[in-house]
């Protein structure tokens, strides 16, 4: 499924406005802010929905829920926190395989799902509008600030392959790789007391489930200067850096138009096929697929994840500046 959708759901008392553009969006926050009310409203027979796609709440019966996920296509499916599917081992495969967008209402960190830091929302500002209807917009929790990439005392890179190789070429032993999101906190913990400032570089397109605990940890240390860089992915940074501008023929911010295996294949006709390992369940994978596709026939620029091409190493400064 591809696309960006603005959805308005309302009844006589309340109106919700949501914009969805990725497979997974998370809605969390305090109790009694209207999350379950949104699910109940979507489930009710009488409501007004202004949307180009069908919006449903996933049924609570597990077998019916799984059938729904397999049979429906191009829907926005709301999954409330008390849906037993979220407690079921292996639920991430069922969702990844389902050709729909999902609004997941839960405070749980769903570490097995590729959720973007930009797609975490809370229901916070409840205001009554001039027709006495409660306006309940989803507010993004991400606050971005511009920070230049300086010479940090320690730089922790989530990537263990091409991204790490490039940073290592620039910063040497100051760089360490966590070899995945799951080990970042451990490395940050090891840096406390040893270094006054650190940088953490992750793929924002999949880091939402880890961000809250990392921020919760780092914020405890008042003397620690830290920056967490959450661009979409390393490949997105390369594409944004300008060094491949002659090959790029899309708006990079519009990944929602192509982030689907069959749409990508039909649009770009790449010489590779998607498998479980590189299926486009996140924008991170889209940018990797796209950079592979546009450089496939240019040997000195050909991008591979395992080993970074000399062309990119020669442009290290431009690429790293793009993080700022």
């Amino acid at each position, binding site marked *: 499924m591809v696309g960006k959708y603005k959805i308005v759901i309302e009844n006589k*008392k*309340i109106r919700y406005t949501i914009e969805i553009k990725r497979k997974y969006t998370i809605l969390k*926050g*305090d*109790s*009694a*802010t*209207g*999350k*379950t*009310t949104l699910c*109940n409203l979507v489930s009710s027979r009488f409501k007004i929905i202004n949307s180009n796609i069908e919006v449903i709440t996933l049924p*609570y019966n597990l077998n019916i829920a799984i059938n729904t996920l397999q049979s429906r296509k191009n829907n926005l499916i709301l999954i*409330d*926190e*008390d849906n037993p599917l*979220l*407690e079921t*081992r292996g639920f991430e495969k069922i969702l990844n395989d389902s050709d729909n967008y999902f609004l997941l209402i*839960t*405070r*749980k*960190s769903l570490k097995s799902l590729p959720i973007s830091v930009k797609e975490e929302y809370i229901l916070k500002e*409840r205001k009554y509008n001039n027709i006495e209807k*409660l306006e309940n917009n989803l507010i993004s929790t991400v606050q971005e600030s511009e920070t230049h990439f300086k010479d940090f005392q320690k730089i922790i890179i989530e990537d263990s392959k091409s991204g790490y190789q490039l940073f290592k070429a620039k910063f040497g032993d100051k760089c360490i790789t966590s070899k995945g999101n799951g080990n970042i*906190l*451990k490395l940050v*913990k090891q840096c406390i007391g040893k270094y006054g400032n650190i940088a953490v570089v992750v793929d924002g397109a999949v880091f939402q489930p880890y961000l*809250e*605990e990392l921020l*919760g*940890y780092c914020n*405890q240390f008042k003397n620690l200067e830290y920056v967490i860089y959450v661009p979409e992915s390393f490949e997105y940074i390369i594409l944004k850096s300008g060094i491949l501008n002659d090959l790029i023929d899309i708006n990079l911010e519009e990944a929602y138009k192509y982030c689907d295996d069959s749409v990508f294949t039909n649009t770009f006709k790449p010489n590779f096929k998607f498998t479980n390992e590189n299926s486009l369940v996140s924008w991170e994978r889209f940018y990797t697929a796209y950079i592979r596709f546009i450089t496939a026939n240019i040997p000195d620029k050909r991008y591979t994840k395992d080993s970074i091409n000399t062309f990119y190493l020669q442009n290290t400064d431009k690429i790293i500046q793009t993080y700022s």
Partner: protein
Amino acid sequence: MLEMQLGYTWKEQENIHFSSNDYYNNMVDENVVLTDFGRKVIKTIDGGDVIDKNVIVTKALGGIPQEHLSGGTKSLLTLYSDQSDGIKLDICCMGDNCFPLLAELSEMKDIKLYTEDWRDIFTGTGLKAVKITNTGEVLTTQQEWFDVFFDWLVDYEKKDE
């Protein structure tokens, strides 16, 4: 006292729930909303006044049955009720705004929750202590909770059993 189990196995997860909604609606005595604690939770979290056990009036939703109370309120009332032994809850079942009332409840009775995620249960909540059931330690400050939780989290790997 509040007891907390850090982490759980996949086998344990079969009986640990991320929400009390379904349990509350079907198993918890509906008179719980008429208790002083019930009224206080509903007033504080949902901004509602309990008219009787069938009607609660909130500014946001008007008159509602108790089945439409928030998930956090239902979790607190489930833990408060005598039937709380019937369900094991992950702390994700309630928002941060429930923690002051969770602290209050923990001084009235022993309650147990489970967590895999960092939640600051001490700062600004009035919580006096939490017992970590994995080790038996009793922690009385945010700093102790922070240290123990993150020492545990960095090595946490969910096991089958």
